C-alpha cells in the first residue's frame, strides 16, 4: 500500500463525516430485510429496492461523495500542494487515489446489494449485483475524480450528471440511457444473473465496452489534468 493511498484512506476515514455514508447502505439492507420478513412478493419490492434505491441512488451518491472527496477535498483546502511537490509521477498520485475511492465505494455498495440480492432472489443475483456494482463504482469513481480536477465545483457538476442526466432525462429521453453508467450496471447485473427483477435498456456488449471506456478514459483525463494543474485561490 503506497503512502498516497494510505494518506487518502486516512483522509476519508479519519473524519466524523464518513459516518454520514453509513445510513445509505443501512436503509437498503433494512428495507430488504423488512420486505422479506413480511413476505412481500420480490417482484414488487425488488425493482424499488435494488434498482430504485441501490443502483440509482446509493451507488452514485456514495461514489460521488467518496470520488470527489479523495482529491477534491485536498484541492479545496490546499493540501494537494504537499503531494504535488513530491517527486512522484502524476499517475502514481491519481491511480492510488482512484483505487481507494473505488474500493471504498465498491465495499459500501456491494455488500448491502449482495444481501438485498440474496433476499430478493438467489445468491447468484446477489453476487451479480455486487460484481456489477463494483464495476459501476470504478466507472463512477473515475468520472468523479476526473471531474474534481476539471472543475472547482465537482460535486455540483456530478449532481447535474446523477440527478438531471441519469435521473430526469433518463426517464423521458431514452437516448440518454446509452450514456448512463446506471444503465450499464443494470445491464451487466442482468446478464450475470437473468431474473425478471432487472430491466436492461442497453445491450451487454455496449455496457461492458462503455464501462471500460469510461473508466480508462476519465483516468487518463485525470492524469493529464493533474500534469498541468494550477493551484489557484478560490474566487467568488
Amino acid at each position: 500500500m503506497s503512502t498516497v493511498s494510505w494518506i487518502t484512506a486516512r483522509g476519508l476515514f479519519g473524519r466524523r463525516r464518513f459516518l454520514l455514508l453509513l445510513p445509505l447502505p443501512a436503509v437498503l439492507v433494512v428495507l430488504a430485510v423488512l420486505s422479506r420478513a413480511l413476505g412481500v412478493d420480490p417482484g414488487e419490492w425488488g425493482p424499488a429496492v435494488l434498482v430504485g434505491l441501490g443502483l440509482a441512488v446509493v451507488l452514485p451518491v456514495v461514489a460521488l461523495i467518496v470520488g470527489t472527496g479523495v482529491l477534491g477535498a485536498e484541492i479545496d483546502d490546499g493540501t494537494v500542494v504537499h503531494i504535488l511537490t513530491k517527486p512522484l509521477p502524476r499517475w502514481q498520485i491519481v491511480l492510488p487515489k482512484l483505487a481507494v475511492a473505488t474500493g471504498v465505494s465498491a465495499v459500501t455498495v456491494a455488500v448491502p446489494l449482495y444481501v438485498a440480492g440474496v433476499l430478493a432472489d438467489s445468491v447468484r443475483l446477489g453476487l451479480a449485483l455486487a460484481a456489477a456494482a463494483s464495476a459501476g463504482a470504478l466507472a463512477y469513481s473515475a468520472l468523479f475524480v476526473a471531474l474534481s480536477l476539471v472543475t472547482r465545483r465537482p460535486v455540483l457538476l456530478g449532481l447535474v450528471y446523477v440527478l438531471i442526466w441519469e435521473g430526469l432525462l433518463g426517464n423521458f429521453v431514452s437516448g440518454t440511457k446509452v450514456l448512463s453508467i446506471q444503465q450499464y450496471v443494470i445491464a451487466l447485473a442482468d446478464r450475470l444473473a437473468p431474473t425478471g427483477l432487472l430491466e436492461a435498456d442497453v445491450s451487454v456488449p455496449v455496457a461492458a465496452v462503455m464501462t471500460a471506456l469510461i473508466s480508462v478514459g476519465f483516468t487518463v483525463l485525470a492524469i493529464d489534468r493533474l500534469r498541468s494543474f494550477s493551484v489557484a485561490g478560490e474566487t467568488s
Partner: protein
Amino acid sequence: MPEPTGVIHDIGYQRYTGPRLGRRQVFGALYLHGLRTAFGLGRSAKAKIFPWLVVGIVTVVAAGATAVRSQIGEVVMTYAQFADNMSWLVIFFVAVVAPELVSRDLRSGVLPLYFSRPLPRSDYPLAKLLAMATALWLLLGAPQLVMFLGAAFTTGDGMRGVWNELLDLLPGLLYAGLWAVVFASIGLLVASLTGKRAFAAGGIVAVFLMTTPIVATLSVMPSRAVNELAFLASPSTLVQGVGVWSLGDLLITENGAGQTESLIGDFGPVYAVAAVLLVAACVTLLLARYRKVAAR
C-alpha cells in the same frame, strides 16, 4: 521611583456619530443578501451558473407547457402539478443554494462578526431560512406566472377566463410555498451541519433521494394503513400528500383521479400535521445548532 513617561497620543480616530440601525435592519440586510446569494447576484459569473441553469430549465418547461396549451388546447400540467413535476430540479436547487447560504459562513469563520452586531442568535438562521424559502418560492412561482400569462392572453372567454385562471393560479402559488418551506428547512438544517459545501450538497441530495425509494417499498407492504401512510417517508411525497388532501382536484387530472385519491385514504389531516411537525422540528434543530456553533 521615576515618573511614568508613557503618553497617549491622539492619532485622530473618530467615533461613529451617525444613526445606528437596529435589529430589523440587520435582519433585512441578511435576508436580502441571502436572497441575492441564492441566485448568485452580485457575485462572479461562476456562482451564477448552477442557479440560473435550474431557473432556465424550469422556465423552458413552463414555456413549453404554455405553448402546447395555446396551440393544441391540451393542458399538459396544472399550476399545482408544476411543482410536483419539477421535484428533482428543486432538490438540485436546494443542494446548490443551501451550502452557499450557511456552509460558507461556517467555513470562513465569520459568524463571530455577525453575532457581534445587534443580532439575536435566532435571527441569523431565520433570515437565511426566509431567504432560502423565498428563493425556492420564486423558482416555482415565476414559471407558474409565465404559464398564467400565456393562458390569460390566449383565453377564449374574456375576463371570466382570466379570472378562472387566476383562481387556479393562487392555490398553485400557495402549494409552491409549501414546497419551498419544507425543502428550505430540511436543506438548511443539513447544510448547517458542515462547513464544506461539497459535503453539504452531497448530504442534502442523499437525504432527499434516499427517502423516495422507501416510499415505493412501503407502498407495496401487505397492509392498507402502511400503504396509505407510506408517503410520509419522503419530504416530496409528504408535500404531495398534503396537496392531494387540501387541493384535491387541482392536483389530480381526470385520468388518475380515483387512483391518487385513494392512495392516501383518509389520512389527509395526518399529512398536514406531519408537514407542520417536520418544518417545526427542522427549525428547532436549526436554532439549536446556531446556539451552539456561535460559541465556538
